[in-house]
C-alpha cells in the first residue's frame, strides 16, 4: 500500500498548505465585520470548473495509485510472470505525448486569441488520442495472439485492467474535447473557449503523466528504480 | 428535570449492568490472562470516562435547562481547559495502549520450545495434523488434495509420512506445553476460535498463519469458526480436549499417521526406517 500512502501524503501536503493560508488560527468571534476590515483570507479566484477538475484529478490519481498499490502487492506472489511489453506501446506513448503537445499548443493559441490554431490543435490532439486508443487495442490483440490471455497470469490481468482503466479515462476526456472542439467550430467567443481548452490540456497532461507512471510499472523500471534508491539509502 | 434523571439513570444502569451481568468472559484456559488484564484496565479507564461525561451532561441539563430569564454564558473557548483535557485523554490512552502493545509483543513472539501443530479449515469442518516421531511436519500444498489425501500432505516429503492426521475429529492437547498452532485453509477464510483460549487468528487459503499458547487447565472446549465462511458457518464446530500428559499419550497412540491413512503404509514405513536410521 506504499503507493497510495505516498499519494495521500502528497494530497495531505497540498491540503495542509492550502489550509495554512486560511487563517485557521484566527479567533473568528473577535473578527466581526466585513471581510476587508482584517487581514483577508485568500479568496478562491479560480473558476469553479478549474477547481472541479483539480479535485477530480485527485480522485483519478487516488484510483491509479490504488491500482499501482494492488499491482505491487500482487507482484510479490510466487506465481507472477512478468508480461513482455509489446513494442507497440512505445509508439503509443509517443502518440500520446504528441496529443498532449498538440493540446498545449491549442492552449497557447487560445491565449493568443488565435482561433484557427486552436481548432487545429484540438483536432490534432483528438486524432492523436484516438490513434493512441487504437494502438492500445492493437497491443491487446498482439498479446492475445501471442497467448497472453487475461486470466493466464496476474501480470496479464493487471495489464489489461490498468490499460483499460486508463483508456476509459481518455475516452471520457475525448467527450469533453469533442464538446470543446464543437464550441470552437461554432465560433464561440474566445474568452469562453479558453477555459475549456485549458482544462482539456491539463487533463491530457495528467493522463500522460499517469500513463508514464503505468508504463514504468509495467516495464519494471519503477521497480528497478526503487531498488536502486533503496540500495543508496542502506 | 426528568430528562436529567433519565440520562443519569442510563449511566448508572450501564454501570450496574456491567457489575451484575451474568454474561462475562469464559474462564480462561491458556496463558493469555494478560489479555484479560488488559481488557480489565480498559474497562476501568473507559468506565470512569463514560460515567463522568454522562453524569456531567446530566448535571448540565438539570442545572441549566431553559427557564424564563436565563441567559447563557458567553464563552468562546478556554485554551487551558482544552489542553488539560487533551493531555489527560492522552495519558488515559497511553495507559491502555502501553500494556496492549506489551502483551501484543508477547503474543507474536513464539517461544522456541513450542510444539507445532496444524489446524486446517475447509467448508465446513476442521482437520488437524500433529508432527510424528521426528517432531517435524511435512510440507503441504492445496494441489495435492484428493479424497485419499484430504489435507494435501506432500507424499514425497519424508517428514510428512509419520504425521498424525485427524480428519474432522477432535483435537487433543497436553496441558502445560506451549503449542504453536499453524493455521491453514483450503477454500475460504475461516477462524479457529476457542473462546477459552482467547487467542485466535484467521485461516487464509494460500498462506499459513499462526498463534501460540500454553493450555493451563484440562477440559473440553468448543471450537467455533469466527470468520464468515459460507452457508454452514455456524455449524462448523468440533471440540478440543486438553489432557494430562499420560492421557494425551494414550490418545496419541491410537491415532493414525499419514502413511497409514494413505494406504501406502508398507512402502512408506520402510522408507521412513531406512531414511531415519
Amino acid at each position, binding site marked *: 500500500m506504499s503507493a497510495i*500512502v505516498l499519494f495521500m501524503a502528497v494530497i495531505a501536503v497540498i491540503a495542509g498548505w492550502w*489550509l495554512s493560508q486560511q487563517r*485557521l488560527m484566527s479567533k473568528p468571534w473577535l473578527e*466581526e*465585520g*466585513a*471581510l476587508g476590515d482584517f487581514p483577508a483570507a485568500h479568496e478562491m479566484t*479560480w473558476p469553479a470548473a478549474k477547481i472541479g477538475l483539480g479535485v477530480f484529478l485527485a*480522485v483519478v490519481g*487516488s*484510483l491509479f495509485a*490504488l491500482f499501482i498499490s*494492488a499491482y505491487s502487492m*500482487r507482484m510479490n506472489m510466487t*506465481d507472477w510472470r512478468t508480461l513482455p511489453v509489446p513494442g507497440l506501446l512505445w509508439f503509443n506513448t509517443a502518440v500520446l505525448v504528441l496529443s498532449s503537445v498538440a493540446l498545449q499548443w491549442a492552449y497557447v493559441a487560445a491565449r493568443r486569441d488565435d482561433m484557427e490554431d486552436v481548432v487545429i490543435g484540438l483536432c490534432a490532439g483528438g486524432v492523436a488520442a484516438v490513434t493512441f486508443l487504437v494502438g492500445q487495442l492493437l497491443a491487446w490483440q498482439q498479446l492475445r495472439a501471442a497467448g497472453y490471455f*487475461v*486470466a493466464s497470469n496476474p501480470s496479464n*490481468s493487471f495489464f489489461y*485492467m490498468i490499460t483499460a482503466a486508463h483508456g476509459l479515462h481518455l475516452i471520457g476526456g475525448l467527450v469533453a474535447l469533442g464538446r470543446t472542439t464543437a464550441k470552437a467550430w461554432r465560433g464561440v467567443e474566445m474568452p469562453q473557449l479558453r477555459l475549456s481548452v485549458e482544462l482539456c490540456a491539463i487533463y491530457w497532461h495528467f493522463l500522460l503523466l499517469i500513463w508514464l507512471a503505468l508504463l514504468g510499472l509495467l516495464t519494471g523500471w519503477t521497480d528497478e528504480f526503487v531498488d536502486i534508491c533503496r540500495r543508496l539509502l542502506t | 428535570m426528568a430528562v436529567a434523571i*433519565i440520562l443519569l439513570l442510563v449511566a448508572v444502569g450501564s454501570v450496574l*449492568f456491567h457489575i451484575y451481568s451474568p*454474561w462475562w468472559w469464559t474462564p480462561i484456559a491458556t496463558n493469555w490472562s*494478560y489479555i484479560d488484564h488488559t481488557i480489565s484496565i480498559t474497562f476501568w479507564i*473507559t468506565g470512569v470516562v*463514560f460515567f463522568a*461525561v454522562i453524569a456531567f451532561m446530566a448535571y448540565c441539563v438539570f442545572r*441549566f*435547562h431553559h427557564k424564563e430569564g*436565563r*441567559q*447563557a*454564558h*458567553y464563552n*468562546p473557548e478556554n485554551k487551558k481547559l482544552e489542553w488539560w*483535557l487533551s493531555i489527560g*485523554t492522552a495519558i488515559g*490512552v497511553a495507559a491502555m*495502549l502501553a500494556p*496492549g502493545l506489551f502483551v*501484543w509483543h508477547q*503474543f*507474536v513472539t513464539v517461544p522456541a520450545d513450542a510444539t507445532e501443530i496444524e489446524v486446517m479449515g*475447509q467448508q465446513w469442518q476442521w482437520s488437524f495434523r500433529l508432527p510424528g516421531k521426528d517432531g517435524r511436519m511435512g510440507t503441504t500444498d*492445496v*494441489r495435492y488434495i484428493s*479424497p485419499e489425501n484430504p489435507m494435501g500432505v506432500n507424499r514425497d516429503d519424508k517428514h510428512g509420512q509419520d504425521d498424525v492426521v485427524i480428519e474432522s475429529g477432535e483435537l487433543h492437547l497436553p496441558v502445560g506445553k506451549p503449542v504453536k498452532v499453524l493455521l491453514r485453509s483450503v*477454500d*475460504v477464510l475461516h477462524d479457529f*476460535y476457542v473462546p477459552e483460549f*482467547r*487467542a*485466535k487468528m484467521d485461516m*487464509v*487459503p*494460500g498462506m499459513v498463519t499462526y498463534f501460540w499458547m500454553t493450555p493451563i487447565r484440562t477440559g473440553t472446549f*468448543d471450537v467455533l469458526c469466527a470468520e*464468515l465462511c459460507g*452457508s454452514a*458457518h*455456524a455449524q462448523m464446530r468440533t471440540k478440543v480436549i486438553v489432557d494430562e500428559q499420560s492421557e494425551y499419550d494414550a490418545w496419541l497412540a491410537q491415532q493414525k499417521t499419514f502413511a497409514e491413512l494413505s494406504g501406502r503404509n508398507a512402502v512408506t514405513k520402510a522408507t521412513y526406517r531406512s531414511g531415519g536410521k
Partner: protein
Amino acid sequence: MVDVPYDAVTEVPPAEVAEVDLYHPRSWWTRYVFSQDAKVIAIQYSLTATAIGLVALVLSWLMRLQLGFPGTFSFIDANQYLQFITMHGMIMVIYLLTALFLGGFGNYLIPLMVGARDMVFPYVNMLSYWIYLLAVLVLASTFFVPGGPTGAGWTLYPPQAILAGTPGQDWGIVLMLASLILFIIGFTMGGLNYVVTVLQARTRGMTLMRMPLTVWGIFTATIMALLAFPALFVASVMMLFDRLLGTSFFMPALVEMGQQMKYGGGSPILFQHLFWFFGHPEVYIVALPAFGIVSDLISVHARKNIFGYRMMVWAIVAIGALSFIVWAHHMYVSGMHPKFGFFFATTTLIIAVPTAIKVYNWVLTLWRGDIHLTVPMLFALGFIITFVNGGLTGLFLGNVVVDVPLSDTMFVVAHFHMVMGVAPIMVVLGAIYHWYPKMTGRMLNDALGKFHFWVTFLGAYLIFFPMHYIGLLGVPRRYHDIGEAAFIPSSTHTLNAFISIMALIVGFAQMVFLFNLAWSYFKGRPSGGNPWRATTLEWQTPETPPGHGNWGKELPVVYRWAYDYSVPGAPQDFIPQNQPRATPVLQGAAP
C-alpha cells in the same frame, strides 16, 4: 486578530460574488423530477435513501426474529440469514448513511449555509442522483434474481464471496459489485459539487473560520469519501474480474467441495487492504457530518456558541487525515504481518484524542447554557451518550491484543452499531426535526417527536448495550443460530429474545416518525422563517422554504462567525451571520 468596535463596522455593498448561471426549470418535470436544484436533489436523495433504508430495517427485524427465537420462523434459513446481514449492512452503511449525510444534508445545507445560489455544477449534481438511484435499483434487483442477493457479509471477503458455498454466488455478487461501482461514480459527481461549492461559491465574508461546523463536517467527509471510494472501486473491479473472467487477483489455489479450482496464487489479504482502505475512512465519512451537525444542534438549542470552535475545526481536519492511516486495525487477526499491529494500534488510539476533545466540547457547550430541551436537542443528547459509549468500546477493539479475543464476536456488532449506527441516526433524526421547518415551512409535531426520541434512544440503547456482553462471553457474529455450546448459558437466549423484542419496538417507533413527517407536512404548525432563532444563513432566506436560487435578488453578506448566541450586550440572544452590527432590529426572526 482585530477587534472591530460595532460602530466602526460599515455596511458593504451587496456581494458581487460570481453568480452561478442558474438553470431555470421550464416544466413540472424539470422542476421536480429532473431538477438541477440542489434542494430538490437533496430531497430526492433523502427519500430514496429512506426507502432503501426501510428495506434494511425490515431485514434487521427478520434477523432479530431468527436470533431471538431460533427455529420458530421456518422461512428464515441459514442462507437467507446471511443474505439479510449482507444487504442490511451494505444498505445501511453506504446507500443510507453515506447517501443521506452527503447527498441529502450536503445538497440541502451546503449552498444555503455558505450563501450560494446552488451547487456549482447543477447538471452533474442531477446526474449524481440518477446514477445513485440506478445503483439502488440494481442493488434492490438482487432480491429477485436467481440465487438471491449475495450472502458474503458486507465486507464481501474473497474467496468466499465468489464461491459456491455462499448464497448469491451467481447473480447476487455480480450485481452487488456493479451497484457499488455505479454508486461510486454517482457519488464522485456529487462529491465534486460539494467540495467545489465550499471552495469556490462561498458568499462574500464567509471565510472558512466563519463556516458552521456542519459545513466543515460535510466538506471534510466529502474530501475523504472522494479519496477513499476509489479503493472500493478498485477492489470491486478486481473482484468482478476474478468472478467473471477467471483472473486470480484475490484467489489463491483452492479446493472447493473437493474440486480443484483453476484459480491460483492470489491474495485474499490484498482485498482486505483495499477494502479497509476505503472502509475505515467510511466510518468517519459517516461520523464527521454527524459531528458537525450535532455541534450546530447543541449550539442553537443551548443558546450558546459551540465551545472551542477552533479546536473543533482542527479536530475535524485531524480526524480526517488520521483516518487514512488506521485501516489495518480491522485486520489484526487477518493473518497479516504481526508487526503492523504495533503501528496500527498506535495510530488508532491516537485518533481517540481529537475525538475525545470533540465530546468534551459538546458537553462543555451545555455548561452554563440556556438549554432548550427541544426534540433536536434531545436527539443531540442521545447522540452524545451513544457515541461516547460506542467510541469507548472502540478503544477495546483498536488496541490490538484486546481485539484478538473480541474480534468477530457480537461485541464488534454492538460496538459499530452503537458508534456508526445508532449515533449517526440520532443525528439524522435530530437534524430532520431541526431543518424540517426550513424545508417545508411547518414544524414537526412535538409530542410525537418526544415519543419517537425516547423509544428510539432508550430502545436502541437497550438493544446494543447488553449485546456487548454477549460478545464478551464469546458468541461469534454472523451466526444465524448460536446453537449449543458449553460456554453459552441459557440466559443468553433470554437476553437475545429481549433484544429482538426491543428491535421490533424501535422499528415501529420509526413508523410514528414517518407518520409525523407526512402529517406535519399538511397539518403542522407554520414555522416562520427562523423558528429556532438560529444565526446561520439558511435561516435568513427571504422565503421559507427557500426559493430557486435561495436568496432572491442579492446574495447575503457575512459579517460574523456562525455562533453569536447570547452575546453580552446584544438585544437578542442571537445575531444572524448576515447582520452587520449588533444593534439594529433583526429581520427574519420568529415572533
